[in-house]
């Protein structure tokens, strides 16, 4: 069944305590090539049937209204998952 992916990230101007804690851990582990980490969410919505324009619009709406909190988060992307892309690593 097709899957719609919704990506949500904390707003970049706001503190991301979780990302900060991981950045700190990386520094302690000596991995200084990564200067910052931010942690957001990735939703997979399984769609019953074909993904029409209407359903995609609905998912976008959901992403804005329910899956994210617009005061502190941004919806980064809403897209239909191409299974083939998924399996491989670096795109």
């Amino acid at each position: 069944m097709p899957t719609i992916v919704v990506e949500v990230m904390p707003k970049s101007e706001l503190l991301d305590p979780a990302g900060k804690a991981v950045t700190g851990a990386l520094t302690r582990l000596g991995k200084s090539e990564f200067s910052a980490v931010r942690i957001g969410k990735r939703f997979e919505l399984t769609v019953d049937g074909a993904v029409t324009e209407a359903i995609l619009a609905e998912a976008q709406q959901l992403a804005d209204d329910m899956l994210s909190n617009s005061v502190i988060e941004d919806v980064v992307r809403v897209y239909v998952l191409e299974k083939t892309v998924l399996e491989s690593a670096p795109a």
Partner: protein
Amino acid sequence: MKVGVVTFPGSLDDRDAQRAVRRAGAEAVSLWHGSHDLEGVDAIVLPGGFSYGDYLRCGAIAARSPIMTEVIAAANAGLPVLGICNGFQILVEAHLLPGGLIRNNHGDFVCRDQRLRVENASTAWTNGFTVGQEITIPLKNAEGGFIVDAETLKRIEGEGQVAFRYLDVNPNGSLDDIAGLTNAGGNVVGLMPHPEHAIEPGFGPDTPDAMRSGTDGITFFTSVLQSALARA
């Protein structure tokens, strides 16, 4: 006998665990996450709390701290290690115990007096109990849902590695009502409820006898003293 209690940044129940160790009659030694020195302790408690804010996954960052290298080695060599709540999560992240602990199925933090059944009374931390004994221990967490793949679940159930099970209500959606586990050697035990908060009359859970009089938790700490004596 010396029992070490490790303090990680964000540990909360470290001083409470030390109090429990002292009340059980042992010496409590404070250990620091950034050190590689276990200071010759005879047993170790990884206390509750929110190490590193529990931000990545509960216990994940703490499991990768310097002292854990030593704790893992010592545990593999048979040293008794008890992980309480966040400590249990650290043990799981350190792969000293199987499975994972995730967000409670109802989504919220929950604090309650929890009845448990003792399923394994032959570990270093439970030998003062009897199998089937029902005890009440405070539980307080947001991420205590135990999950594991079906095959491992079958194995740990079969090999008696389930140490405690929830009674009356499963407060977090744990598989098989699992509240706590032991490793195959019986020296490493982890559980979500907090025995260190049921050690002193007046400050523990309610019991049928009187309010806040529950002290079932002290047996964890007296058990480890007993097993140390036995080993000596």
